[in-house]
């Protein structure tokens, strides 16, 4: 559905995107995960045809030029910066963007109702956008992107500055769209979001694509070992037989098979007062790939 082929974009001294390639299947939810300045937004802008790549190619739904009217009709985007008219009401905003995608009359009214209901803004539809809270503005930003029922949806950090409740509402929206078969490209620097929503995740940093796989695939390949941390009830009779490092009663073990490690400890007849097992996550993947944390 979406193909990015060796995309390049430079702004003056900054190589914002440096040869990124990927392919997104129809109906797939694809995550672009990376820290600030990784080149996520620049990549999206090239995919939607707002920026001309210095090199490389974009194919959307078989159309090689994303600026072609046929491609555009099928694209929706919720920009990272809230792109709304603050002196228009929620309804007027959604309706305006519906109109420019060619919706008219009853069709338009019905789609506007749907988009506002979908983002839970129906009761505030007559209020000006500037009176909205941050989370409501984000939801409206999304409503304007989906009013024309795009087949391909680009969501650029749709949860920035949003409280957990609004965030969950947005997640529900995305899952609903996904269930309807919409192809979604989702950028974020929150790895939990990518983990929860995305079928596949591309990890990007400094304009380059570091890894691309399913979440479990990425963790298996780059996540490293799980971490087992335990506090023991009594000191073991033979500490040297224990895996990991023992400091008084607290034990710390790095292992790629945490369950086997636990079995070995209990086999030695030792009991725990507390136990914690940390499976590696995308954060660990990023750390292992770059030596830096995703967010500092």
């Amino acid at each position: 559905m979406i193909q990015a082929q060796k995309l390049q974009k430079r702004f003056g001294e900054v190589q914002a995107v440096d040869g990124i390639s990927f392919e997104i299947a129809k109906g797939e939810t694809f995550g672009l995960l990376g820290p600030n300045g990784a080149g996520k937004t620049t990549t999206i802008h090239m995919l939607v045809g707002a920026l001309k790549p210095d090199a490389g190619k974009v194919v959307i739904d078989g159309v090689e030029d994303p600026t072609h009217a046929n491609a555009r009709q099928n694209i929706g985007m919720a920009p990272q910066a809230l792109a709304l008219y603050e002196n228009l009401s929620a309804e007027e905003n959604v309706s305006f963007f519906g109109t420019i995608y060619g919706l008219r009359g009853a069709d338009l009214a019905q789609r506007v109702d749907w988009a506002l209901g979908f983002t839970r803004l129906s009761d505030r539809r007559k209020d000006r956008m500037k009176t909205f809270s941050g989370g409501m503005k984000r939801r409206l930003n999304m409503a304007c992107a989906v009013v024309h029922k795009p087949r391909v949806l680009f969501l650029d950090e749709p949860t920035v500055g949003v409280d957990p409740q609004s965030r969950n509402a947005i997640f529900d929206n995305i899952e609903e769209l996904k269930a309807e078969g919409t192809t979604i490209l989702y950028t974020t620097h929150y790895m939990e979001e990518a983990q929860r929503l995305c079928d596949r995740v591309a990890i990007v940093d400094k304009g380059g694509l570091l890894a691309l796989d399913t979440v479990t695939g990425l963790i298996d390949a780059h996540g490293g070992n799980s971490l087992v941390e335990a506090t023991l009830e009594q000191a073991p009779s033979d500490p040297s037989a224990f895996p990991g490092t023992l400091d008084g009663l607290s034990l710390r073990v790095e292992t790629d098979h945490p369950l086997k490690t636990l079995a070995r400890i209990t086999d030695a007849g030792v009991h725990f007062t507390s136990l914690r097992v940390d499976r590696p996550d995308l954060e660990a993947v990023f750390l292992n790939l770059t030596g830096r944390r995703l967010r500092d």
Partner: protein
Amino acid sequence: MHRIVAIALKDLRLLIRNREALFWVLAFPLMMAVLFGAIFSGMGSKARKPMEVAIVDEDQSEASKAFVGRLKSQDSVKLVVKSREGGLAAVRTGKLVAYVLIRKGYGAKQGFMAGDNKKLEVGIDPSRRTERGFLQGILMKAVFGGLQDRMSNPAKTRKFIQESVSGLGAAGARDPEEAKLATFLKAFDSYLGSVDNQTFKGQMKMDGPKIEAVKYAGGKRPRTSFEVSFPQSVVWGLLGIVSSFAILVARERTVGTLLRLRISPLTWTHILGGKALASFMASIVTMALIFALGIVGFGLRLGNLPQLGLAVVCTAVCITGMMMLIATFGKTEQAVSGASWAVMMPLAMFGGGMIPLVSMPSWMQTASHFSPIKWAVYSFEGAIWRDFTLAEMALPCGLLVIIGVATFALGVVLLSRAKS
């Protein structure tokens, strides 16, 4: 077309909801029109108001009081009684136009010679040339008015003459000049005694030229100051439109809605066409509202509605083009707003927005040819009071359309170049 209209309606809605913009587009020009109109019409009525003059009567004689009475009876002057110092100070500080001082001894002489004009002193600032001439006339009238009073009644006149003769001193002690005057007065007295009262009355009456009131009958001049101030002030509303819409274009860019428009199926033609339509409509509505108020509330002549319509449409074309060009003068709202006022202010000031075209010095009138605003004002005036024929309208209207189309084209080229 539907999409162009959608963009235009959206922009108009945003304009209407922006109080600040509305103020500059409608309220401010209306205020200017009314204010300028009132100031200039006030100036006219000020000249019609009586001239305020201090009167200092140090003589306090019958003759001096009669003189003051004659001055007072003229409605073109208003007297304020003052002391000598008070009168001088009032003129020095500009509170009063002049003072008239009647020194002691003015009424000392009796009879025919009463009222010694050498004892009259008038103080006026030399820069007040018009008022000086005016005051001179008023004083002359008061001085000769006294003479006329005395002469219009032969019996009274004879009494004055006799008093004057006795005032000259004893017959034996007269110097040669006094002797000559006495002889003349005696001859005059006997002449007056011999004529018929009725004939005399009519002949001695001193009348100035008769002034007829002639009502203004129109023609190629503004009838009221509002006919000048309204076309002049509409300019400021148009400035407000240029700046508001140029800012709207910049805001689409900074807020990111332009990005949304550009990744939609809209073409560049839709986007710019919508903006142009909105500013065109806003210009027309603004001009229509302001002129309508001028016609209904301030007596602007509606001599030639089709030509006023033509002027308004051509001006709207010009304003739309200039808005497009100015929208390219910066990437942020602040930059565009600054640029629009920096460009439009001088154009408006030299184009008749500040000083009306009719009152410009000639060098400024020449400079004004380079301001599109001038042609707008000129075309309004052409339709309102200059009585332009359609052929005469062609020059300003043609220029407006040419400037509008040229700046629009340039603006579109520059905007499209900046889009990626």
